[in-house]
């Protein structure tokens, strides 16, 4: 176990460096700079601005300065918001996105596992076909379609849900969490059903049944591991999708999270903000993939190779 963790961490560091460097040069290659605005900036003013942000120095110098600072956690000042540092902005947006993703995953796991287990146990009946069809819908519907639809129905027509915001009105976290989690609930339902089906045919399950244990116990105590494992393996890769999904959901529901910061930074060419968030998201993905691998290893000794 320890070896696994160490090995992964060792790989993580060069990955982060590559990601940072790649992003750095990619963004600098882009036409259009952070200070272009509709009201043209005189060359003087532009020179002064570039001076302040060290953009007049040769590229490799800027690169090394940046990397050196990044190692200490200093991602520089935001280009777009004078007076604010990137780390500060990440720290403001992160808890929000984290909370959103957490609720989404909890919702997805809850709904998905129940649906998947029931479908597996009641295979080839209506309780199998209907949830699986709904699950398919969840996978096939884009988030930016589902979100506004939910708002339309529950927010504007039935008026039981707030239309937007986060932590401003009671219940305003429900619709965003559902919108983000829907696709994952669907995947989890299918994965857990598949896993359960495989397990339910295994010898040790048949033994448990033969021993006279109630069906409920057989399913929930013995077979459930089989249903959980593919889900746990899926959670790691799911984080990358959650990050992407957060862009859409945070925009639709006006949530002040990191995803929205990132998209705006990309469009505004806020170099430092783009770099900081990219590195940060990469670190998150690596971390969650590791967690997912550990969870799988814990539950399934066979996978520890």
């Amino acid at each position, binding site marked *: 176990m320890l070896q696994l963790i160490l090995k992964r961490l060792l790989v993580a560091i060069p*990955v982060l460096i590559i990601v940072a460097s790649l992003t750095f040069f990619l963004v600098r290659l882009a036409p259009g700079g952070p200070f272009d605005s509709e009201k043209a900036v005189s060359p003087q003013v532009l020179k002064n601005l570039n001076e302040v942000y060290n953009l007049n120095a040769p590229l490799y110098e800027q690169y090394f300065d940046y990397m050196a600072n990044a190692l200490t956690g200093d991602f520089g000042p935001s280009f777009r918001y004078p007076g604010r540092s990137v780390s500060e902005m990440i720290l403001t947006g992160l808890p929000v996105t984290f909370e959103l993703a957490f609720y989404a995953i909890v919702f997805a796991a809850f709904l998905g596992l129940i649906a998947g287990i029931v479908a597996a146990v009641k295979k080839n009946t209506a309780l199998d076909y209907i949830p699986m069809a709904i699950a398919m819908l969840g996978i*096939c519907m884009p*988030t930016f379609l589902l979100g506004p639809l939910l708002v339309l129905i529950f927010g504007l027509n039935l008026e039981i849900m707030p239309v937007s915001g986060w932590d401003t009105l009671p219940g305003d976290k429900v619709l965003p969490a559902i919108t983000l989690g829907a696709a994952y609930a669907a995947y989890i339902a299918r994965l857990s059903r598949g896993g359960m089906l495989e397990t339910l045919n295994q010898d040790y399950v048949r033994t448990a049944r033969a021993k006279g244990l109630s069906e409920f116990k057989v399913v929930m105590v013995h077979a459930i591991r089989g249903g959980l494992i593919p889900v746990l393996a899926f959670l790691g890769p799911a984080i990358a999708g959650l990050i992407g999904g957060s862009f859409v959901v945070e925009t639709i529901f006006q949530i002040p999270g990191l995803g929205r910061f990132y998209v705006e930074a990309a469009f505004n060419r806020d170099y430092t903000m783009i770099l900081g968030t990219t590195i940060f998201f990469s670190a998150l993905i690596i971390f969650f993939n590791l967690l997912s691998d550990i969870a799988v290893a814990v539950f399934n000794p066979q996978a520890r190779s």
Partner: protein
Amino acid sequence: MEQKSQSLWSDAFDRLKKNKLAVISGFILIALIVLAIFAPWIAPHSYSYQNLELGAVGPSSTYWLGTDTLGRDQFSRILYGARVSLLVGFVATAVALVIGVSWGIVAGFFGGKIDSTMMRIVDILYGLPFIIFIVLLMVIFGRNIWLLFLAIGAVEWLTMARIVRGQVLTLKNQEFVLAAQAMGVRNLSLFFRHILPNILGTIAVYATLTIPQVMLLEAFLSFLGLGVQPPMSSWGTLIRYGVESMEEYPWMLIFPGLIFTITLFCLNFFGDGLRDAIDPRSSD
């Protein structure tokens, strides 16, 4: 050896035929592809001509699925949208396929150090926030459809590589391969005649399942304003406009949304059906 593969295929085909859902999905998909290919001949109106005075009207006998706010015929736009969306779906998947399958085959076939290095690279790439890079690429280099193909393909090949490699490894250790090796069949021949036919099934399954992922990714980019450039509109773009007007002109959303979802449904059901047909153990 030939006989064995033949019976494998015909068995699979029979199983597939029995899966009614998959068969229906397959027919719908074929119909869609045909419609998309022949769109320029079928479409009753131009997909870009704006009838400004008409504005958005509901379905009628002239405009079967209504018009959008610029007076453009929705039916024609959906047909042309099919071309774009399906094109993106197939081409980007093809890109992913080529890269992923080659990678997986080489890794799995040669094994050993080559395998572990190649898969290590895959592991590393899994750690990259690809969505972020795609957004960045589209923002920086503009909305070029070729870039779109490459970018999306570059994201999706990883899973393909892993699966193909797994399959190749399993096959390599199976009796018929070991027997062939014992008989002195050379590597290349071994590969083309024994391994490749047996992984084609898996490749087909995962390709079919990747297409909807790609199409969703393109729709996501369109929502952010980064998908294909107008006047080319994919279904993702049409849905985006539909969402904006969904209260006043619901048909702008319902029709593209419906057909997008149905297409993805069919692709997924067909892919599932294929997978069940080729490897029956996975659903029993």
